[in-house]
């Protein structure tokens, strides 16, 4: 990659600074307001942890939070397993029957409007007579997030030097052993990043969960969403701040993982 133009014109700097400010300011403001002592969201009444107390005494919210965290953990794990297998099939399977359909099925959910995915899965669950709740939401989230895992892991696999696997096989490894001993350790960072991405996506989803969950088992985003429709509440600011903190931790871990990944080769994760 030849790069001679790295001049920083004033225009470039301004657009970059404004763009980043636009992306971050609302979140910063939300976090600050979550420590506001005043019940009126917009009047500053001094620093306080009042709304965090409120949240930790709100049984319904806590139950929803627990439901969301368990759905996210289970579905991210399933999605990572299935997504990695799919990535291996696409990156190493050469040509096979139904390959175009397979990759089409894996890429379209990335952009498919959530109302469609949610509605179609619900109709399936109703037809199967499945009881709606934890497992139906988990299956729905697994289906959506495994596609993201596939993209992340597949791009890592495609960037990998294949002669390493071939050398292992020349030295007498069978393909499965070559994969487990050579390929897998090299793609672990991408797999970790994929899990984290799947976890945060599941924690974030409100539309698909609304369709696929049953009565009495609302996820945290569903609860937040129904509260937000009624207006801004300081407790929601506190909950959102906690979610942001959790995601920040995940991002730090994931970025370490991808740093590991990029130090071993070109990181090509598109997301």
């Amino acid at each position, binding site marked *: 990659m030849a790069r001679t133009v790295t001049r920083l014109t004033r225009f470039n700097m301004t*657009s970059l600074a404004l763009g980043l400010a636009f992306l971050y300011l609302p979140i910063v403001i939300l976090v600050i307001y979550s420590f506001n002592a005043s019940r009126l969201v917009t009047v500053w009444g001094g620093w306080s942890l009042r709304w965090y107390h409120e949240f930790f005494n709100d049984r319904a919210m806590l139950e929803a939070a627990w439901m969301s965290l368990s759905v996210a953990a289970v579905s991210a794990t399933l999605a990572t397993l299935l997504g990695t297998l799919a990535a291996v099939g*696409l990156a190493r399977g050469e040509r096979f029957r139904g390959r175009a359909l397979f990759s089409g099925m894996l890429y379209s959910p990335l952009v498919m409007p959530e109302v469609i995915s949610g509605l179609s899965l619900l109709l399936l669950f109703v037809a199967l007579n499945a009881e709606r709740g934890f497992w139906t939401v988990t299956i729905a989230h697994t289906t959506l997030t495994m596609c993201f895992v596939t993209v992340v892991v597949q791009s890592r696999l495609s960037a990998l030097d294949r002669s390493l696997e071939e050398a292992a096989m020349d030295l007498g490894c069978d393909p499965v052993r070559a994969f487990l001993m050579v390929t897998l350790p090299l793609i672990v960072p991408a797999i970790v990043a994929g899990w984290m991405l799947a976890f945060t996506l599941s924690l*974030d989803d409100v539309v698909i969960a609304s369709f696929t969950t049953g009565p009495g088992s609302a996820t945290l985003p569903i609860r937040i969403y129904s509260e937000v429709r009624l207006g801004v509440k300081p407790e929601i600011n506190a909950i959102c701040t906690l979610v942001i903190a959790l*995601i920040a931790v995940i991002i730090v871990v994931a970025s370490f993982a991808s740093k590991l990944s990029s130090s071993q080769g070109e990181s090509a994760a598109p997301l």
Partner: protein
Amino acid sequence: MSARRIFARPARLAAIAPYLWMVLFFLVPFGFVLKISLSQTAIAQPPYMPVFDVTEGRAALAAAFAQLSFDNFRLLLQDNLYILSYLRSLVVAVTSTLILLLIGYPIAYGMARLPQRWQGVAMMLVIVPFWTSFLIRIYAWINILQHDGLLNQILLALHLVSAPVVWLSTDSAMYLGIVYSYLPFMILPLYATLSKQDGSLLEAAGDLGASPLRAFWLVTFPLSLPGVGAGALLCFIPIVGEFVIPDLLAGSNSLMIGQTLWLEFFTNKDWPVASAAAVALLLLLVPPLVLYDRLQRRQLGTNG
């Protein structure tokens, strides 16, 4: 047989489980959407008439086919509500994509011109909001835009307005929310193509007498078109079916198709019409989806 060929077989076997999963939970459900979109509404649980049951054999199937009804689609075509919400979805998606392009391009361009070591940091800064909850970021804007929110307080303090401006429940708030949420999706593909461009091309254009602006327009921009296409599709397709942002930020007098579908499903409990709306939305999205699929595969450099 080469090592590569030997490796391919177990790799294909690995794909069986995810393949079956996607067929069962992605492909088959569309069959149900199609089926129910052709059935009659009923006051029952679930609220539609059964169309056909494969277990009942061929005769029953044939009888059921005779009963298929296109009433729901006819309703979609006849009722202004649906046509208007389709049109609105298209208008909103096209407008938002254009705004995103106008805002995203300079940012991606600025990123690509940063010194190498800062580019990674800038990219990280653009990706992080994508990880942060989408619902929370919309909620953050409600905090700012509400009647006595920060924006009105600032405007009043600066004496730019004499009374609080209504920001929430307007189209401007909705566009703001959409642009805010989808900006990373626009920036990243643009940055990917812009950062790969060879700087010597611009120097050559300069040596040949082109002004920087002309060089940009004649060299940089045409070369970045694949990124423009990818970014535009990545934003356009989901925005057409967007539900949460218009529901929380726009007014309720004109709905997007995602909202109409939601309303039919959750409020009116009319599953067949909701399914028909989903089928129609899907038909609208097939061409951009195919295009996107092609771009994506080219980008990943796979040979399928």
